[in-house]
């Protein structure tokens, strides 16, 4: 799952997958703005067949939180 999240993040933020690390956050990627953030949410929801509520959407601002939340949602 973590590798797939990194692939999605790389695609949404238009960077190489090698630039997405376990500690990557919204401060590290130039393209991680509000609009790309929502694109990331939409891509994650589609890929993992989940629905995030509003609070969750706004909290997912780094890779660790994304991975943790998706693990809980898909468990």
């Amino acid at each position: 799952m973590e590798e797939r999240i990194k692939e999605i993040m790389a695609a949404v933020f238009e960077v190489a997958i090698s630039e997405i690390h376990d500690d990557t956050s919204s401060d590290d990627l130039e393209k991680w703005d509000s609009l790309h953030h929502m694109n990331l949410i939409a891509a994650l929801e589609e890929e993992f067949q989940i629905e995030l509520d509003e609070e969750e959407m706004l909290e997912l601002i780094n890779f660790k939180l994304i991975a943790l939340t998706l693990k809980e949602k898909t468990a």
Partner: protein
Amino acid sequence: MPELIEARIEHFDDVYGLLRKLNDNITTKSRWKETFEDPFSTKEGNAGFILKDGNRVVGFFGGIYSKRLINGRFLRFCNTHSWVVEPEYSTKGLLLLNRFHKLDNFILTNFSASPGPYHIMKKLGWKEKSDASCIVMAHPLRRFLNKGSKAKNFYFNSDIVSLLNDQENEIYQSHKKFRLDFNVVINNIGHSFQVFKQVTYRPSAINRILPFGKVTFTLGRLYYVSSPEVFFNDRQYNIEVICKRQNWLGVILPTEYTERFGIKEFRPYMKKRPILYKAKDFDDKDLDLLFSEIFVLDLN
């Protein structure tokens, strides 16, 4: 890490600099300042929220508050507008929107979202109401034929005050300082109060074939009508009288009225604005564009 605080009048000059840089250069400073001066006298105490990094304002999302009497209920509205964030802080922009989401018991509205914010707001649960409108042109000949028959039933601007009910009077008193036209029509069914705003319209189909110059029409856009069945009962005549008085070539109406009252003589109005709202327990048939940036900032 920038801090999120309420936007107050003392922040205006800094916010204005940001708006000039990132939003538009058309709206005057005094109009922007009005959005910071509690234009609808609610005493909410802020004009939206700002992101501040040290002494520097790096983000702003405006809010225009109002408290309205609608169908006997008092409802609190916040019209959000002008979401701007310095590019290097763009990841923090959602904090501003999220702060509005935390307002309790407010109906949030936004009538000017560009494609990016529109996408974000829809994803975060904002609903959309159609802004489909049409143009009904005035016909000077019909006005001539009707001359004198019903004009005594029209009242304009300050002459209307004694005719208004509480809900209508609240709208009139709150909006009379803006560049709007207020009318009351009375007929045997009842009375109807309307709020129109003059707008300029450039018909692209005509302008495309003109070898030089551009044509601009002046129209009146209907932003509010109480008892629409009264106004639309004598619609062609009423539209003629209003257009003659204001020198408008026609009026722009929401298509819900053309459908409801069987108006067939209209042409489509292509310019649309996104009408977004987020609220619990609110029917969008009660949603209009009054008490918003459209009037405070005098948008076309």
